[in-house]
């Protein structure tokens, strides 16, 4: 029998008895509707995650900051072996090594600007802040913190990313009078580097400044580099017996005398006016870092070369005499030091070279004096750190391998050509997926990195989505098979008379088989078409609900882990996952075809005698 004739018989059956067909059509409609809804929304949530949340983390997770292993603080190495610090630091060689690792897009040193006394008085009203820790950052790495341009262009405000931790100002608290005594802790408890005890020895207090990120971003302000340091307006002395520290405020006369003494000392070699005037630049805030563990602010690498060069030039211009006696360098006058490799400052490792010379001699002398005396005869000693040496901004002292002063180094470009060392390097990955491999490679190359990145929240959601998809897929297959077998089985069992009659008037077994298989496919197609229509509609309608849920999920979980979470557009949840629709469509038809053969085969075996059976 012709297929078209069989098909027209099926259509007539459907037309006169649509009720029976509905037992198959409606479940198929529901399944297809759900498959479109579920597979599309699963994919939409994934897209929303990767398009928004994952982008957020991707930025943060494609950046690795590798830090040098901190050495145990060893006072003896402080004075004797300066180079041991540098051995543990990263240099351009390390950058080359890291850059050669697959999956590393870029690596750069977060080298600290070798400058001190960097201040701004106009970022906050009436409060001067000083930026103690400025590092350089190339524009690639800066893209992790700011979307704004991070390059230095002459004549335009210089972009800067500020650490919120630097928003504090210090002041001297003389509320208890001009003389303050502070009792020390128990003997022996004092160890180097213990912050609280040192704080108790000063009358300097610090207070954090409240700020609004939104107000600060885009704000222009000025930063001054260089200039002379403030002269301490008090003296500190300690009674070793009672362990009581006495801080005494200097009288105005004494204080002015100190300033005058300093001016006199400087004027011997430099124009006092010129050397004491800081270089001031206009900046624009392009980012605020709110990281509890870091106080580093960032400026463009190009600008760091310029500012150091400007200060060196200023110092050279300010010279009264071109020659400064070698013996006063690093004793009476401090500055940057250049050992033929690195330009160092008073901060971090450079501090040692600054303290060196005369001060070192002074301390060692006193220590030896102390040790020579019997105990109990200890006197009150006074170490005045303020007088001994004057820091000249922009002064570069040339030293040899053994830290002996060679002379001044009069080269404004020394910083840009010098090797730079850093305690940390920023590594940008080509993709978040490379993270694990790169970390492995880094550790193998000797750069210890413990991966603390926690992607659990997303992995959990991802695996939930995966589970939902898989459960639905399996349910879909099982349900389609079951529904087709059951409904067709029932339909056929109710059609024995019909089959008998067809057989009696000459239909072959294969015609009966074809008739019922095509009948079930016809119903499945109708259910499918309706399901696609309903699915698209329901997907559209439910997009708002899914969007609301997604936002609350982000609020509840991701926002708590990450400060910045990109917003997601609700239209993303209206998308249909056509690939899945196609997959489910193919599955539906293949399963229906295969499974409908089973009851249809039994239909074909129904004897024509059934037609004659009298009820």
């Amino acid at each position: 029998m012709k297929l078209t004739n069989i098909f027209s018989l099926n259509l007539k059956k459907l037309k006169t008895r649509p009720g029976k067909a509905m037992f198959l059509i409606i479940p198929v409609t529901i399944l297809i509707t759900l498959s479109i809804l579920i597979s599309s929304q699963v994919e939409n949530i994934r897209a929303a995650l990767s398009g928004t949340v994952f982008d957020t983390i991707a930025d943060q997770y494609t950046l690795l900051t590798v830090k040098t292993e901190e050495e145990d603080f060893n006072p003896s190495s402080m004075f004797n072996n300066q180079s041991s610090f540098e051995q543990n630091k990263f240099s351009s060689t390390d950058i080359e090594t890291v850059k050669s690792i697959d999956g590393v897009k870029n690596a750069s040193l977060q080298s600290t600007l070798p400058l001190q006394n960097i201040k701004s008085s106009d970022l906050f009203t009436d409060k001067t802040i000083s930026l103690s820790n400025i590092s350089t950052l190339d524009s690639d790495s800066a893209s992790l913190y700011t979307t704004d341009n991070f390059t230095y262009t002459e004549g335009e405000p210089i972009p800067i990313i500020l650490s919120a931790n630097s928003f504090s100002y210090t002041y001297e608290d003389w509320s208890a009078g001009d003389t303050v005594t502070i009792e020390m802790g128990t003997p022996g408890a004092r160890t180097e580097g213990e912050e609280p005890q040192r704080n108790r020895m000063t009358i300097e207090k610090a207070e954090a400044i409240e700020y609004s990120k939104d107000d600060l971003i885009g704000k222009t302000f000025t930063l001054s580099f260089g200039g002379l340091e403030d002269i301490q307006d008090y003296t500190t002395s300690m009674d070793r017996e009672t362990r009581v520290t006495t801080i005494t405020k200097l009288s105005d006369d004494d204080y002015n005398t100190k300033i005058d003494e300093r001016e006199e000392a400087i004027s011997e070699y430099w124009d006092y006016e010129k050397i004491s005037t800081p270089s001031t630049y206009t900046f624009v805030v392009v980012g605020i870092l709110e990281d509890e563990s870091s106080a580093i602010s960032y400026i463009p690498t190009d600008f760091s070369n310029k500012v150091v060069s400007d200060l060196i030039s200023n110092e050279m211009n300010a010279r009264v005499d071109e020659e400064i006696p070698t013996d006063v360098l690093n004793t009476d006058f401090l500055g940057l030091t250049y050992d033929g490799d690195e330009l160092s400052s008073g901060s971090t490792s450079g501090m040692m070279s600054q303290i060196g010379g005369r001060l070192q001699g002074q301390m060692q002398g006193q220590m030896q004096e102390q040790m020579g005396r019997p105990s109990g005869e200890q006197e009150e000693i006074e170490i005045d750190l303020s007088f001994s040496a004057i820091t000249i901004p922009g002064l570069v002292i040339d030293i040899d391998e053994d830290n002996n002063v060679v002379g001044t180094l009069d080269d404004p470009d020394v910083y840009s050509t010098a090797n730079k060392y850093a305690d940390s390097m920023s590594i940008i990955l080509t993709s978040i997926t490379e993270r694990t491999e790169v970390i492995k490679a880094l550790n193998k190359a000797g750069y210890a990195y413990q991966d603390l990145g926690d992607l659990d929240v997303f992995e959990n959601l991802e695996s939930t989505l995966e589970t939902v998809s898989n459960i639905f897929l399996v349910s879909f297959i099982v349900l389609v098979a079951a529904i087709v077998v059951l409904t067709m089985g029932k339909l056929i069992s109710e059609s024995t008379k019909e089959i008998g009659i067809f057989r009696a008037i000459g239909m072959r077994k294969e015609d009966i088989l074809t008739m019922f298989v095509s009948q079930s496919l016809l119903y499945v197609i109708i259910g499918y078409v309706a399901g696609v229509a309903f699915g698209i509609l329901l997907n559209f309608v439910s997009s708002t609900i899914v969007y609301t849920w997604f936002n609350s999920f982000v609020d509840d979980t991701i926002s708590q882990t990450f400060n910045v979470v990109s917003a997601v557009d609700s239209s993303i949840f209206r998308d249909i996952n056509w690939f899945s629709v196609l997959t489910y469509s193919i599955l539906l038809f293949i399963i229906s075809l295969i499974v409908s053969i089973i009851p249809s085969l039994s239909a074909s075996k129904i004897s024509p005698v059934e037609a004659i059976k009298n009820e």
Partner: protein
Amino acid sequence: MQNILEVKNLTKRYKDGDIEVTALNNVSFSLSVGSDLAILGPSGSGKTTLLQLAGGLDAMTEGDVIIKGQSIKDMNDREISDFRNRAMGFIFQMINLQPFLTAKENVLVPMLILGVPKEEASERADQLLTRVDMSHRANHLPSQLSGGEQQRIAVARSLANDPQIIFADEPTGKLDKKNSEMIVEMLENISREKDMSVVMITHDENIAKRFSRVIKIENGVVKKDVNFKIK
């Protein structure tokens, strides 16, 4: 005269649980082309079984049935199906029309199975409906027709592919007198046509008497084989 149907030692046994039942026992007869035959017998006598076996609707246990000189015993499903479609017409008791097809469509089905072109089939269906006086109800579904009307459609359908033999299994069993009369008359008319034989099963002796030959069956065995008239 050539035989359209030859039934040879036809036996049908089947198992009803553990008991073997002989529905038909060694029945033999032959029917010449264009003749008519009534098979008479009470219910359970085996007359329906005889018709099922003769029409190739069921498998025989022993013996053979030869239609148009062809043994149906060894035919496969395809062959016997095609044979039923072309050479035989069937009229059963109520309700044997496809309920989802209109009167005309029911008549059309055997022709569609055979592969008669649509237009030709449609034309022939109209003729057949006119012949059974049902052209006015051509587009009605069986449920919209009376029992007599339905059976007239069944008669038209049995004639669709111009068969040589019509098997009718108590076609009047559920009809009133008037309708029964009409159906029997139709079958009589058909049997008068050249080359068309009619085999009808009935338990009504009055109807059986109107046929030129009556075979009476009891307990699966031929009791009587009477020729009333020669056609």
